[in-house]
């Protein structure tokens, strides 16, 4: 499997920046096994922590055959290239008012991958003070579509009326 095909397959399955971090950690551990006598022949074990689909792709792409001194250099090069590509993946930071479950994350991720870019990741944040809506940060641009902001704006415009009603 070529390196770009491997990356395309993995990035299609990765949804969030924390998942990318998990993969990067596993790749680092795989590199470490090259220099460890204890884990010789047990390279596939490092991918156990990852979801099955991702683990299977990485095993097929990197560790399907035993790692020997002969193929070690080419595998290391593959790992480095994959690591670099994953590190430079762009992400969108989403702050929402509720704790997202797996289904929500998948929903957001699928929509973004389909409508924006298949290589884009999401970084979900939870902040109940925004009340509703979302804050979006992408490429250094900050957009505030929260209920908190709408309420604050409304209060600023209609302050006197609101205070009058309260009094």
């Amino acid at each position, binding site marked *: 499997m070529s390196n770009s095909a491997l990356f395309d397959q993995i990035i299609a399955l990765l949804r969030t920046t924390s998942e990318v971090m998990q993969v990067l950690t596993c790749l680092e551990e795989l590199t470490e096994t090259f220099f460890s006598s204890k884990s010789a022949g047990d390279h596939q074990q490092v991918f156990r922590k990852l979801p099955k689909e991702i683990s299977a792709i990485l095993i097929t792409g990197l560790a399907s055959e035993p790692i020997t001194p002969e193929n070690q250099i080419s595998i290391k090069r593959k790992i480095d290239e994959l690591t670099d590509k994953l590190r430079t993946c762009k992400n969108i930071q989403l702050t929402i008012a509720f704790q997202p479950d797996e289904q929500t994350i998948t929903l957001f991720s699928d929509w973004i991958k389909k409508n924006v870019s298949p290589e884009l990741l999401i970084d979900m944040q939870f902040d109940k003070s925004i009340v509703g809506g979302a804050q979006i940060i992408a490429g*250094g*641009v900050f*957009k505030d579509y929260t209920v908190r902001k709408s309420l604050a704006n409304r209060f600023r415009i209609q302050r006197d009326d609101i205070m009058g009603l309260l009094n």
Partner: protein
Amino acid sequence: MKTFQQYLTTNEEIGFVEACNQSIVYASGLPNATLQEIVMFETGELGTILSLAREQVEILLFSKYSVKAGMKVTRTGIKQEIPVGFELLGKAVNPFGQPLSASVTIETPKISRPIDISPSGINTRKRIEQSFETGVTLVDMLIPLGKGQRELVIGDRKTGKTSFLYQTMLKQASLGTICIYAGIGKKKTDIKKIEAFFHSAGIENNTVIIATSSEDPAGVTFLTPYAAMTLAEYFRDEGHDVLVVMDDLFTHAKFYREIMLIGRRFPGRNAYPADIFYTHARLLERAGNFVLPNGNEHAITCLPVVESIEGDIAGFIQTNLMSMTDGHIYFDVDMFTKGNRPAINPFVSVSRVGRQTQTPLRLTLSRELTSFLSLHRRLESFSHFSAEAGSGIKRTLAVAERIFAFFTQRATEVKNLDLQIVIFCLLWTDYWQDIQKMEKDIETISQTYKNSMEAQSLVKSLVSNAQSLNELLLAVRKQQDKILSLFGIQVVNVTNI
């Protein structure tokens, strides 16, 4: 200033701190940030954009407290500015116009000006033609300055540089010039001393102190002289002559070097960054004699200070500054230890434009005096053979000794130049033979001059009516008895004229 959230909502741009190295911060994001723009961190700390890269911006932090990786940062859309106005007169502020002391409140001026701007062009400048008095006889007579001149004050530490600056500011403030003292990375006690001096001399209403202490962040310290110059430009545009004292640019260069080395700039000579000359030149180029749009002429005179190490004036920063100023006044450590006050070495000091501002009288006097002191310098070696030396040499040595005594001045004392010229004429005509009597008489004359309007008008008429030194010498000789009796000096017979 607004809050972080307000700036974020307005500009809709955010960055995240990726790395922090002392006062330099690297942040991702902020796609439309511009150079020298002020940025705010989520904790309220401020910084300025130092350089831009494709993925990151380099920020110079203005805070004592470091920021952490992952912290949010946003643009403010404003450049480095200082509030400027007459409200700052008599105050001691930092480069952002905030009071140095927490107990002092300042009415913040409504106008702000950018701290770092390009110097005005040649079309706004005019030849320096007005004389600039320092109140220090030796400088006013031998190394004359002009309004709008940039004169470097150079010397080892503890050689009397600050005293000279005090005297100059005292003299100029009394003449109505606005004096701005920029203390760069000074000790807090030193800043307090300057404040106290301005207060005790009664010139605080004509002075502003812009200072940073050695505890302040390097980024803020670096801005000090630029902020001082911005304030000077404001007062100039308001129709005032301004004196800016920058104490000192050697410290400024060291702070700039620190910032640039942390910012991974390639080190040049003495590890200073390659643009250190440009950094100082664009600052000093903002001083000069200017023609305002209304046709009036106003000057920003600048006295940058630089410290020399062990009398070495050929250092990198020292020679850089010498080449970008219009002369230098050198404080000689050897003269200081010999007891000369001020310890200015007239043979090493230079004034490139000051002479063009002098009257013919002052010009001839200065030439005569310089020529005589040069002669004395050559003959000084003969002083070891006093018994064998001829009467001419002995007389030269004796007169020179009296001249150096005449130049001696207390640290906070300023002298009137016209009076000093008349006293010099008395000295030059050998009225005094005994130095102690001369010093006593000069003291009496100075005191009388301060209190007597008649004495002041006599001195003024004598100096203004004379076109050359010879004319003045003749006039003084003719009216010697009258002058001396007016000043309350007992007349003695002069034998050798």
